[in-house]
């Protein structure tokens, strides 16, 4: 078996496991409900009288902050708690096969939840004439943001046996990643830090890159940013597993 086939085996088991527990149903219902709730009640989807999905997409980062950790917390912590980590790590898989397979399964799962929100897209198309290009790019941005948070969460899950700790660590890490681009934080920094530093901090934030894509512009730097975060945390994940697997 080559690496791709090994990753596919891991992916299949992981992906199915979401649907063997109520996790999938609970996650999807809550995600869809909250995404709609924020868009309609807080974002003023109808009141704005504009045919776009901005009020829908602008709350995704804040939804992901506590929903993504709920998916990622179990990735490794559960394997360690049940002892199955010893089983999978003595099957003919490399550590990277397991890390990538698990990550892709989790990402596919959250992306499906995201795809189920297409009813919003249908609604807005029926009511008006939205810019479909912008919406597609915004969906891509949302998927990339979810992927980046999942990679961070998978890494943190590898560091502990305790799922609650994995959840809290991931939520805090994702929150910090967002906060670095939050206008209030940047305004506070602008008061005393040189503009280069402020720009530097803003550019490390997932929020900055997400919002620039949400406007419908594909900037290579934004896509590259998410790709880098994902790859970097998957590499860290491999090291974390090899280092802490037997604890």
């Amino acid at each position, binding site marked *: *078996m080559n690496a791709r*086939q*090994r990753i596919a*085996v891991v992916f*299949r*088991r992981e992906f*199915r*496991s979401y649907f*063997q*527990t109520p996790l999938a149903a609970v996650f999807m219902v809550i995600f869809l409900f909250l995404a709609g709730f924020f868009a309609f009640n807080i974002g003023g989807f109808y009141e704005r009288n504009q045919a776009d999905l901005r009020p829908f997409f602008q709350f995704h980062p804040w939804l992901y902050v506590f929903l993504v950790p709920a998916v990622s917390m179990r990735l490794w912590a559960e394997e360690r708690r*049940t*002892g*199955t980590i*010893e*089983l*999978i*790590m*003595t*099957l*003919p*898989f*490399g550590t990277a096969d397991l890390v990538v397979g698990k990550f892709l399964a989790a990402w596919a799962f959250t992306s499906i939840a995201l795809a189920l929100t297409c009813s919003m897209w249908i609604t807005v198309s029926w009511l008006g004439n939205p810019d479909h290009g912008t919406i597609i790019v915004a969906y891509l941005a949302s998927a990339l943001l979810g992927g980046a948070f999942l990679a961070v969460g998978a890494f943190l899950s590898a560091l502990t046996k305790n799922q609650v700790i994995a959840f809290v660590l991931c939520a805090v890490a994702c929150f910090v990643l967002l906060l670095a681009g939050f206008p209030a934080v940047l305004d506070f920094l602008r008061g005393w830090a040189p503009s280069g530093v402020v720009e530097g901090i803003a550019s490390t934030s997932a929020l900055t890159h997400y919002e620039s894509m949400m406007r419908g512009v594909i900037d290579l730097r934004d896509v590259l940013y998410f790709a880098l975060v994902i790859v970097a945390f998957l590499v860290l994940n491999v090291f974390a597993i090899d280092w802490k*697997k*037997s604890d």
Partner: protein
Amino acid sequence: MAAIDVRSVVVISVDFRSDLMASRIVAKKLEKRFGQIHAVRGIDLEVPAGQVLGFLGPNGAGKSTTMRMITGFLEPTAGSVHLEGINLAEDPIAAKRTFGYLPEGAPAYPDMTVEEFLGFIAHARGFRGREVKERVERSIGRVNLQGVRRQAFETLSKGYKRRTGLAQALLHDPGILILDEPTDGLDPNQKFEVRELIKELGGDRAIVLSTHILEEVEAVCTRAIVINKGQIMFDGTPAEMEARAPRTVVKNRMDHVFRMITTGDVAMGTTMKGGSR
């Protein structure tokens, strides 16, 4: 003269090859440190096909740690492991294909059914299509899991969990089996069944199993190794081990020798009153 030289070279190379083939597991000078703790201190081990090796030792002696190094779950601090001639450190994925492993406590995914779990193992072992089904059927039959095949792992009794673990280890018919406490927690009937299975499998495989039950070693093993504080204290046949007990000991002679080796409490030649259990 020249002809003789050539022949002797040939003979040497043949010997070398057959030696490699004969020992399916070759572990050399295995060491493991966990921070301050020196868990395994220089273990050398060679297990040829057809041998059933019983790994004995008190809790914390380093049995599981040694098995985890042989299966590649833990990297040794020093030393090397070869499985079927493949260096575990150099080509871990190829080396991991050579054995089936039952980790301590027989872990499996709680929400998967026995069938689904074995199907996953079959895919992980590289089987595809019809072969997956055949392999799963065969290993279900081999350890009598027919009655619980559609049950989730977490709902199984201890005995069935252990058997699922065995089925998983046997699935690809490996030449090497490494079983960490395969009969732990089983009732006497289940223990008997597992022992019969191990005996049956022993013929052409190299099997390493750890256990606390000394009668098990007598029943299934062709070789016994006692380890204590990370070192091999005894290596020989179960009969040789038993023969170490002083003649005055009549009952539970293996237990007596085990305690002699691992604690030093029972000096050679003293009689244990009321048996040693």
